[in-house]
């Protein structure tokens, strides 16, 4: 036991140490990509609308006339201290933007991930357990169709059916305009804020708004889980230990649930980490489709405005989140499956 703990700690420290160069590489890539684009952020946002002298004055004031290396070191220092700059187009601290709109994206992606795991794993388990039955066929079809369908297509379909024709669910925003104004939002996570405020009618409204976008995003990721879990269930059901359990005379239900399914779920943890990056990119499309005021919507808005500072800040933040989640998932994976540590 003591040996295991030491091993986990060592693994965690190694993994953390390895994450640092990845972060550095990511930050360097973001910085360089933003500079590869023609001109500097000030010229991009305001070029053609300011006299040349004024443009030059603003470039100098923002430090874009300095050598690239100096700007790079300063950028790294700023990111290390949590300073992502101020947007050029509307003079807004990027950290405020991340706090406000990032919370919307977090709420959407977390709910989508929960839905993805519930639906994806559920369908995958049933499909694997009842191999080559109509249930399996249905599950496989679901997995393939959902995975292959573009997010915006699923989104529009959901909007049309549940919003327009059935009128059951709202199709845009995080909450009704009045609720989003009147609700006190200390965390910017509306579900949490409504619970903290004890405002159940607002919570109902927020959940109704969350259902369609979270389901759309969740289902797409869920398709991946379905296919993965099905294959794993099929493999584990043919494993020696499952045969041994059966030979010991254990009821089939115990064999399947206690021995086969648990082991079939281990790879899901790994894939969950990888899917989170996909989830964040999917969120950009989902947010556009459902008018969800998250980081994805803001990213597109600032791209339209050619506001490189905002774009750089958002991309840097998202990249850091993906790295952090990947490290976290590795920890969980090592904890769940001791083989990972060796």
């Amino acid at each position, binding site marked *: 036991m003591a040996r295991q703990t030491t091993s986990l700690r060592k693994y965690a420290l190694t993994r953390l140490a390895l994450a640092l160069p990845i972060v550095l590489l990511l930050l360097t890539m973001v910085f360089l990509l933003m500079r590869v684009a023609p001109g500097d952020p000030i010229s991009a946002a*305001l*070029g*053609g*609308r*300011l006299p040349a002298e*004024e443009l030059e004055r603003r470039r100098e004031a923002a430090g874009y006339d300095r050598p690239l290396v100096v700007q790079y070191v300063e950028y790294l220092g700023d990111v290390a201290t949590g300073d992502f700059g101020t947007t050029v187009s*509307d*003079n*807004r601290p990027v950290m405020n*933007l991340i706090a*406000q*709109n990032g919370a919307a994206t977090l709420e959407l992606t977390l709910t989508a991930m929960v839905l993805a795991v519930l639906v994806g794993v*559920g369908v995958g388990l*049933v499909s694997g357990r009842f191999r080559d039955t109509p249930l399996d066929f249905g599950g496989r079809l679901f997995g393939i169709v959902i995975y292959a369908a573009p997010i915006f297509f699923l989104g529009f379909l959901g*909007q049309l059916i549940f*919003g*327009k024709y059935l*009128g*059951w*669910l*709202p*199709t*845009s*925003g995080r909450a*009704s*305009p*009045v609720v*989003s*104004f009147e609700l006190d939002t200390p965390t910017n996570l509306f579900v949490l804020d409504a619970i903290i405020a004890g405002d159940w*009618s607002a919570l*109902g*409204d927020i*959940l*109704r708004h969350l*259902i369609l976008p979270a389901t759309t995003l969740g289902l797409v990721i869920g398709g991946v889980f379905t296919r993965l879990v099905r294959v794993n269930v099929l493999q584990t059901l043919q494993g020696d230990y499952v045969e041994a359990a059966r030979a010991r005379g254990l009821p089939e239900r115990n064999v399947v649930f206690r021995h086969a399914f648990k082991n079939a779920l281990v790879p899901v943890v790994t894939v969950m980490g990888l899917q989170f990056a996909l989830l964040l990119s999917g969120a950009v499309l989902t947010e*556009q*489709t*459902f*008018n969800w*005021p998250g980081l994805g*919507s*803001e990213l*597109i*808005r600032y791209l339209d405005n*050619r506001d490189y500072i905002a774009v750089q800040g958002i991309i840097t933040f998202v990249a850091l989140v993906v790295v952090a989640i990947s490290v976290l998932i590795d920890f969980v994976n090592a904890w769940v499956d001791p083989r990972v540590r060796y």
Partner: protein
Amino acid sequence: MEASRWLRVVALASVLVLGMAACGEGEPAQPEAEQGATIIHGTTDPWQSFDPAGSYDLPSWNIIQNVMETLVTIEPGGDTPVPQLAESCDYDDPQTYTCTLRQGVTFHDGSAFGADDVKFSFDRNIGIEDPEGASSLLASLEEVEVVDDSTVTFHLGAADSTWPFILTTAAAAIVPSDTYSETEVQSDQNVIGTGRYSVAEFRPGEQLVLEAYEDYWGDPPANSRVIVQLFDQSSALKLAVEQGEVDIAYRNLTATEIEDLRGQEGLEVIEGNGTEIRYLVFNVEEEPFDELAVRKAIAMTIDRQAIAENVYNGTVEPLYSMNPVGLAGHIDAFADEYGETPDVEGATQVLEDAGLDVPLDLEIWWTPSHYGDLSADEYTEIQRSLEESGLFNVTLESTEWDAYTEAAFTGQYPAYQLGWFPDYPDADNYLASFYSSDTFLANGYSNREVDDLIATEKASTDQAERVAAFEEIQRIAAEDVPIVPIWQGAQVAAVREGITGVEETFDPSFVFRYWLVGKAA
């Protein structure tokens, strides 16, 4: 067994969700007006800035006109400036304009409005000279003189009869001198004016909440709160108004979406006078547009009716003058000169008389996003009508707005698409802006007679004399054809049943006056 238990859980969850959904449905509308109503306006128009010194776009100006006030204003349905923050204004002479200020007016922060604020507001706008701002509109102002606490005098560099109109624009809105910076554009999180509404909350890119200002000096608004909800896509806005998430969908539903909403139960499509126009600019120094005959032939061949009907489903009207219908001095100069419908025979004759070989190659530029998705169809229709005549081969080119304006306004495009909203509802804003020798269009057009007529109308305070000048400018411009007017758009909103007052605010000034909008209880 396990599966059936799971199904029961799913069924129960569905019932709960549907139950919550049902709880959200509204009560049937009552005929009486609701006191203290909240109006929710959905739009796809993003804002640039709520500072009069930092914006020159319709959405921002609209908010400024609701939150701040100007010395004079255009009343709903009116076309002449009347006092607002001033008690009276008048010319002392053609270059001097004096206003006596209203007393007892306070800003939203409680500070008193006075002559110093007026001088401060104009001086800072000109001083900041923000690239996104409209300080250029104040170009004729030389100095604002504070005569006493309740009197200001504007000294103009030249006689300018449009000055009272310029004073009605958001660029001339008054801000408090003790809160706003003299050198920087104000943050949108700290917007202060004397208007009927104060800004209660602003979430950039998402939502703006206005609340009725309790100490407002005039009549209170017909509602107590306005929530402006921003949408990325017009399709989402359309669904939101269908579902009752918003009360008013105003700007920018597409023509197809408006048609789809028309006649739906619980919804009403309201159309009103609008002075938004679209036109095609020729660079008269570039081949083949340097030939007057080519420009005339194009003006005779473009099928405006087809554009209005086929592309915009009848939500716009063919336009035959750069001075739109509804403004003083409008005449259908192009219809008078070339007819209302395409005249291919006439166009062929004009080109033949000029000795030009047909078909002529034309390069026309347009921009895909800035004027909405239908621009693509509009220019395909223009291409079709021109090529169908057999007189032209048209190459369409497009690029996005920033690069587009940079190239267009430096004379790099031979012919290009453009649109216009009024700064103020006066023909000068539509004629002087495009036909004077120093026009921002950079299309090389210059006509001394037109310049003289513009100088005349600007210098005159006699409306009959101004109207005569406007009419003559339109006639000359139709003969010279530096620009072809294409269409004039109405203002269109889809509103939920029970919403009142939207019709009243639709007028050529293009100000959406929230204070007129009420809601049945």
